[in-house]
């Protein structure tokens, strides 16, 4: 029982990080019906920027916020340079570009910071918050989950209560009519890219701040695959769906694979994909997806 509980707690931790990257993916998908394969690497780069700022002496939370801003600005630049010049309706070139960005960003991080794992600042208090029997729920898990919810609430308010949020939702819903209402579509999508990158950087920072992990350029590779699965589970166009999807994937990893003895550890990815297939068969638009969307 203790072990089961412990696995549940572990799932919460990883699930929160997956959810944040999934949220970033969902933001881009909502705007462009495109899966941004570079999202994980953008987030990794953002986390390295946070680390660098911290090394230069900024307080860690200031470093996180400035890092989110910088990665948002970088994403806005990437959107303007590589994405906007292509026809948004033609997905193949755009998918290839995001794959290209994936490789380039990974290489840039490797050149600048090398492959040696580096210690990331501890964003949250140490130790266990709650101990039930032998199962410990760490402060890190609680704060990771809590900040994930906080980011989602902030995004929710931004998208539903502000004018830029309204224009973002309008562009997601109908590009042509948005133009006819006087919305500048390009800058609005650029805002979406910046927002996604900032959310992703936050997610990667939380992920890297896990006391058992260190940061290195390939830290987000596995996480990206799980986050894409999480986003798809949630319905690809729903923020809260991304949270549910992220937590589900976290729990599949920790509970299903690590608690049930006959599912070997190597099967983690397989197990998540099987669950994804089952969910999408029963509910083609995922947990909370609003429309039947074309899947890549």
């Amino acid at each position: 029982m203790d072990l089961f509980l412990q696995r549940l707690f572990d799932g919460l931790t990883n699930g929160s990080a997956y959810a944040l990257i999934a949220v970033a993916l969902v933001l881009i998908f909502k705007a462009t019906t495109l899966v941004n394969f570079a999202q994980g690497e953008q987030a990794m780069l953002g986390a390295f920027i946070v680390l660098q700022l911290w090394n230069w002496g900024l307080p860690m939370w200031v470093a996180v916020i400035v890092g989110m801003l910088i990665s948002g600005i970088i994403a806005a630049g990437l959107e303007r340079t590589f994405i906007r010049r292509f026809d948004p309706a033609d997905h193949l070139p755009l998918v290839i570009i995001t794959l290209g960005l994936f490789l380039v960003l990974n290489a840039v991080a490797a050149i600048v910071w090398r492959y040696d794992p580096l210690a990331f600042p501890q964003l949250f208090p140490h130790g266990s918050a709650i101990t039930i029997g032998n199962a410990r729920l760490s402060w890190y898990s609680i704060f990771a989950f809590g900040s994930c919810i906080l980011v989602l609430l902030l995004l929710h308010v931004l998208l539903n209560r502000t004018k830029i949020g309204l224009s973002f939702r309008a562009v997601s819903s109908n590009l042509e009519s948005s133009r006819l209402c006087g919305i500048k579509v390009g800058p609005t999508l650029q805002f979406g890219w910046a927002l996604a990158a900032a959310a992703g950087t936050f997610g990667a920072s939380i992920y890297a701040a896990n006391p058992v992990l260190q940061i290195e350029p390939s830290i987000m590779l596995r996480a990206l695959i799980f986050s894409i699965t999480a986003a798809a589970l949630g319905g690809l166009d729903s923020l809260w769906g991304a949270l549910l999807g992220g937590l589900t994937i976290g729990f599949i990893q920790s509970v299903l694979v690590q608690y049930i003895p006959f599912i070997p550890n190597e099967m983690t990815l397989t197990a998540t994909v099987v669950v994804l297939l089952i969910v999408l068969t029963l509910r083609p638009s995922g947990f909370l997806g609003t429309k039947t969307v074309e899947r890549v």
Partner: protein
Amino acid sequence: MTDVLLKAENLTASYGQIEVLHGISFEVYDNEIAVILGANGAGKTTTIRALSGMVETTGTITFKKEDISEFESDAIVRKGVAHVPQGRGTFPELTVEDNLRVGAFIRSDNDVQNDIQNCYDTYPVLFERRTQTAGSLSGGEQQMLAVSRALMSRPELLLLDEPSLGLAPQIVEALFERFLIMNKDHGTTMLIVEQNAQLALGMADRGYVLEAGEIVIEGAAESLINDEAIIRAYLGG
């Protein structure tokens, strides 16, 4: 007739290599209702998309004496031209109220909520459905929403692309009565593209007939309604 509000001169429009409008000229006067009639594929939609800066064009378009030929769509809206596209063009995932808010996107005054209330007063059904998504509305309700949304930008010129399409006759009649009221009471100038010639000419001041990308007939609505060629081609006489 007073001033010219909008003037198109020698307007061509193309999709890639294919030219669809072959140098047409027309104008819309202040406070009038003008219609462009034409069969399927004549180029009606292309004409008003050209006015909104949504297709490749040559020639000049002047609005309020300013050359807007090279303007982007969003700048044209800001100048005071609203466009209700063919097939309504609502935002299906957004609520009715958010659709109206998007319509007021270019505005920064404090009257927006007031204008939304006016839309609800005009179409109480939109008030009843204000928290529903636009995609869940019926065709007629969507058209009411589309027109209301366009009016939310407080346009001087309203472009309407086949507003009667796919709607039941009574609904069309009510819709067009509304257009007349808007025109008479608020002085909103309108350019309406229609296939329903009878209906359109019945309320319009002037009309143009578009055929294969060229204007073949133009004149006052009363004279067009009695025109032999038009009766044969469009009025089923």
